């Protein structure tokens, strides 16, 4: 298993600003992912965070809006840029050991006003 620390746990932000969410894992992991959960909805994959290279984004998500960094095998950040109320969601990071179980951080509950 893995212990995943995600910060902040919640935030209220003004529209037009940006928020950076951090995800720290207690061991080196191969795969790290970022998901979004809009109110009352299921989880949707935003991107795969690749160590040492650009993230791989899913359809409907772009780097300018959701820049991601992954400087090493234990840490990643997701930035939500130029926020609008539609960005109000829970954002979760996830890690997976190759061919095994995925684990999630506790999530960041973002409200944009």
């Amino acid at each position, binding site marked *: 298993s893995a212990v995943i620390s995600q910060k902040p746990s919640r935030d209220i932000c003004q529209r037009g600003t940006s928020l950076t969410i951090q995800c720290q894992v207690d061991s080196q992991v191969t*795969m790290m*992912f970022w998901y979004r*959960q809009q109110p009352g909805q*299921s*989880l*949707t*994959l935003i991107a*795969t965070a690749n160590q040492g290279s650009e993230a791989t984004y899913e359809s409907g998500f772009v780097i300018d809006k959701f820049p991601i960094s992954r400087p090493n095998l234990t840490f990643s950040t997701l930035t939500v840029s130029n926020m609008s109320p539609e960005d109000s969601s*829970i954002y*979760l990071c*996830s890690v*997976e050991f*190759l*061919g*095994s*179980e*995925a*684990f*999630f951080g*506790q*999530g960041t*509950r973002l409200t944009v006003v």
Partner: protein
Amino acid sequence: GIQVEQSPPDLILQEGANSTLRCNFSDSVNNLQWFHQNPWGQLINLFYIPSGTKQNGRLSATTVATERYSLLYISSSQTTDSGVYFCAVGSNAGNMLTFGGGTRLMVKP
């Protein structure tokens, strides 16, 4: 991409009752997990079960990969079982998980 459907979408139980949640998926998978999302939004791992049967206390799960479905059984439900249950699958196309729509469970005292 792979499709994941969960049923029922909503379920109300009286405390002590048993229930079965279902997850259907549209293609072969190499990963299947059940999660419980608590009221604070945290996803709790229940089972990693790409095939076979597992039990953990009052919960058990069965995945029949050849028929592309998985079942989560909750016995003697408690109010603390309330929340949203998600099934998520991973296919050979990548390691990321695709989530079903969830089953929202409410257990009444």
